[in-house]
């Protein structure tokens, strides 16, 4: 077997690939309209996540803290949630959905966030906010379990579980995008639109790329409504494009409301997009239109220009969110490249049985390593001390110093990306995303050829 799947041998983390669960929950919650989460824990658990989002999107998002201080850590801090909900409701008249998001500290001290939600529902909301639509949703996301990826998965499920309500069946599908960028949502909606398919999109984050308007509009937020979430129970099927980021919600909808769950594919690359559209065609009965044949053709035409001439046999290391990393590797293989190292940043036991990983194990004829529970030192150590030679790194900005330090060209992809402008706008899904990504890889390589005087004259007649 050429593909080696193993867990990082060290116990600790040197330069993490992921952050912890509450961040994932917060990322899901900003996708919902009129939603302001309250994170129950120390203030850093919110302040830094807001900073991270603003680093990536160059926008500000609203998230509140229960501001756990010393007294709360000793005596319990449920009173801080009660006060926090009240203060938030008083000052943000539009707020309707308030997830109460636990963290390591409040899970360790055992604060009963479900109990306090019941208490608030029976007390404060009935008395002071009678007639106002408010949804308090406790979400347990201790930081010492899983990662930001499982936090996101969990949050989508909790929101769906809370809101989904059986009504009249519709022709719509549920589209759970996973942890993607606004540019990806735009592209996915485009594919659905040309297919003539309507969807409840979880989450509508196109507006994260928000304009600078003459009237001033100080924050960005998602646009998935309570109605969209309720309606998920009535859809024809749920497409959880990323198995690890929305799969749980799809499973819930199937178990609870018999909405068929379709897991994947993450539509990165031509082949995965083909699969997605074919599944969509099968479920909805809508044919794939000529315009998509053409779009596909444009992408193929562009990608052909760069693959066998430039990208073939280039060795790549990829790190980031699991569905992203795996599907990027698949796309790279289609482009004749050689992903030699895949780093998945948490210890999810499901990775080992992921059919895509099994396929790598069964069919690859060169050595690929997949490291679970990985950190970025797994990559750097191999380069610095292990003799690993790679031509390209694909991953998010937290790994930028490996590229900088060892002069390896790097394509920024995933979350967070803060050291390149506007990447959240560039789709990597669908035919268009495949084309743009292939071109970005090629252009990154070209720039590197020039900086290093590495056969750069060949570009003269390309």
């Amino acid at each position, binding site marked *: 077997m050429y593909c080696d799947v193993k867990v990082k041998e060290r*116990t600790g983390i040197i330069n993490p690939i992921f952050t*912890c669960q509450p961040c994932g929950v917060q990322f899901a919650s900003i996708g919902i309209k009129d939603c302001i989460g309250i994170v129950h824990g120390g203030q*850093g658990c919110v302040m830094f996540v807001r*900073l*991270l989002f603003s680093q990536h999107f160059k926008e500000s998002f609203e998230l509140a803290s229960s*501001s756990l201080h010393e007294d709360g850590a000793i005596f319990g801090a449920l009173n801080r949630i009660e006060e*926090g909900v009240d203060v938030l409701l008083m000052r943000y008249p539009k707020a309707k959905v308030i997830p109460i998001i636990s963290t*390591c500290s409040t899970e360790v001290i055992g604060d009963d966030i479900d109990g306090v939600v019941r208490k608030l529902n029976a007390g404060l909301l009935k008395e002071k906010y009678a007639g106002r639509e408010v949804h308090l949703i406790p979400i347990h996301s201790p930081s010492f379990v899983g990662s930001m990826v499982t936090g996101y998965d969990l949050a989508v499920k909790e929101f769906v579980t809370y809101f989904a309500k059986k009504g009249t069946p519709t022709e719509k599908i549920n589209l759970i995008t996973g942890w993607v960028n606004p540019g990806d949502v735009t592209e996915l909606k485009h594919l659905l639109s040309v297919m003539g398919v309507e969807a409840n999109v979880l989450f509508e984050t196109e507006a994260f790329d928000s304009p600078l308007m003459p009237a001033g509009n100080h924050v960005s937020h998602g646009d998935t409504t309570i109605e969209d979430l309720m309606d998920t129970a009535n859809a024809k099927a749920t497409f959880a494009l990323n198995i690890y980021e929305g799969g749980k919600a799809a499973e819930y909808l199937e178990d609870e409301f018999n909405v068929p769950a379709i897991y994947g594919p993450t539509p990165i690359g031509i082949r995965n997009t083909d699969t997605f559209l074919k599944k969509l065609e099968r479920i909805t009965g809508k044919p794939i239109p000529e315009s998509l044949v053409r779009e596909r053709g444009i992408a193929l035409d562009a990608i052909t220009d760069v693959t066998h001439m430039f990208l073939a046999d280039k060795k790549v290391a990829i790190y980031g969110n699991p569905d992203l990393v795996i599907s990027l590797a698949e796309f790279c293989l289609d482009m004749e490249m050689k992903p030699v190292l895949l780093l998945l940043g948490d210890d999810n036991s499901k990775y080992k049985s992921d059919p895509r990983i099994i396929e790598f194990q069964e069919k690859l004829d060169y050595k690929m390593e997949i490291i679970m529970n990985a950190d970025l030192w797994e990559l750097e150590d191999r380069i610095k001390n292990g003799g690993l030679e790679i031509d390209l790194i694909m991953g998010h900005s937290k790994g930028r110093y490996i590229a900088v330090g060892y002069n390896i060209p790097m394509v920024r992809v995933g979350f967070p990306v803060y050291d390149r402008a506007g990447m959240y706008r560039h789709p990597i899904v669908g035919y268009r995303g495949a084309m743009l990504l292939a071109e970005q890889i090629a252009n990154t390589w070209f720039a590197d050829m020039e900086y290093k005087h590495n056969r750069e004259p060949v570009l003269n007649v390309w």
Partner: protein
Amino acid sequence: MPYHLFKCSECIPEREKHAVIKGYGETLTDALPLGYLNTIPGSISERGCAYCGAKHVIGTPMKDVIHLSHGPVGCTYDTWQTKRYISDNDNFQLKYTFATDMKEQHIVFGAEKLLKKNIKEAFKAFPEIKRMTIYQTCASALIGDDINAIAEEMMEEMPDIDIFVCNSPGFGGPSQSGGHHKINIAWVNQKVGTFEPEITSDYVINYVGEYNIQGDQEVMQDFFKRMGIQVLSTFTGNGSYDGLRAMHKAHLNVLECARSAEYICNELRVRYGIPRLDIDGFGFEPLSASLRKVAMFFGIEDRADAIIKEETQRWKPELDWYKERLKGKKVCLWPGGSKLWHWANVIHEEMGVEVVSVYTKFGHQGDMEKGISRCEEGALAIDDPNELEGIEAMETLKPDIIFTGKRPGEVAKKIRVPYLNAHAYHNGPWKGFEGWVRFARDVYNGIFSPIHELSLLDISKDEIPTDKGFLTQHLLSDVNLSEEVKNSTVLREYTGDYDALKRIKERKYPEFPRKSGLEGELSAV
């Protein structure tokens, strides 16, 4: 009424005592915002936690240290690559961060073994690094791991390493300031006095409360070295672990920040008799005064005067070029803590701008006393501002520019107020004479941006001239400028390099003869 209650905070009236308008003829005894009190939950305050105050703000700028956080991964992740403190050892502390990665089983059964393994792994990965700081987090504090004991044990096992333990969990105090404080006291208690340094000058200082944002420390160190003063340690920007263990050997503590950095200086005074001199490194006049004071302490004013003269001649015409164009522009000075008072008066005097508001996220009342003293009458001072208050203030005050953090800066952008990063700077360093010009240039480029000018227009409603292909900063800034200023042959725009540190790194320093051993020793004590 000097106290100010924001409309958006009428439902939380306790906020009234946190904002003050500096009234005409009023003094600090008439009104002073409350400070460093527990945050109102749900108010969307901008404060961070005590862990980040200890690790991210004070601890991590130490350059030759493995910074290991004992807890789940998030705390470490959050405090990594979110600041711009560089170092002259290829930014080791900026590039590498370490987490013990505490999981559920550790919460239940304890994580001390995990910590031990981590310590070994980290030193093994970086054999050239022999120093470590371990930071407690909320999780490791609550499960009660004895980090100190583990550190002692490991130091016995590996004699060439040294470990500092900082117990400052996120919930410890109303804001990051709690952590600033804890790490200071912990350092002076655990580490000062445990290393004997090489003394190379008759004049030896500790430079305290300087974090080397974009090279500030290197700029200041350059001045000290040109005067023949040995900077034994910098607490903590670009500072080395062992240098800081030797703080007790300095003759003078030169203090630049506030609050907790004061405590360490006070303790050094009490324990080792080292006096504390508070200085300002920002702005021509305050910086000149500061350099002079430090030199005068050692009786070498002439060396300071020479530097001040040279630097002022070189850079003053450039500062004044910007001052002429920035006169009267309204500024919201909304940093985290100390910059509100470092800058409040000097940007008014040396850049000509009007400070219409100051705020502090984590400062104490002492910071507000300084800030309010130093800003002009009519300014609005806010403690622990929350999101809505910040927006209300910007909409009422209509500043031309705001100096604040990255994320609040994004809010300002949307309200179409240009922003400069007050914590991490735009094109720093901003300390030093050249640095101060760089700051002025950043302010100028922010305010007189043609794109900013476009953002104020509504294409559907406003008259927009159709005969313009472009505008420039000059075309915008020089509209009402006198011919004399416009045509001045003295004033000029910034002429330094993109990287202002390059020149410093190449500098050769003069060698000053030392006094004979005994005399030198005596005069220095």
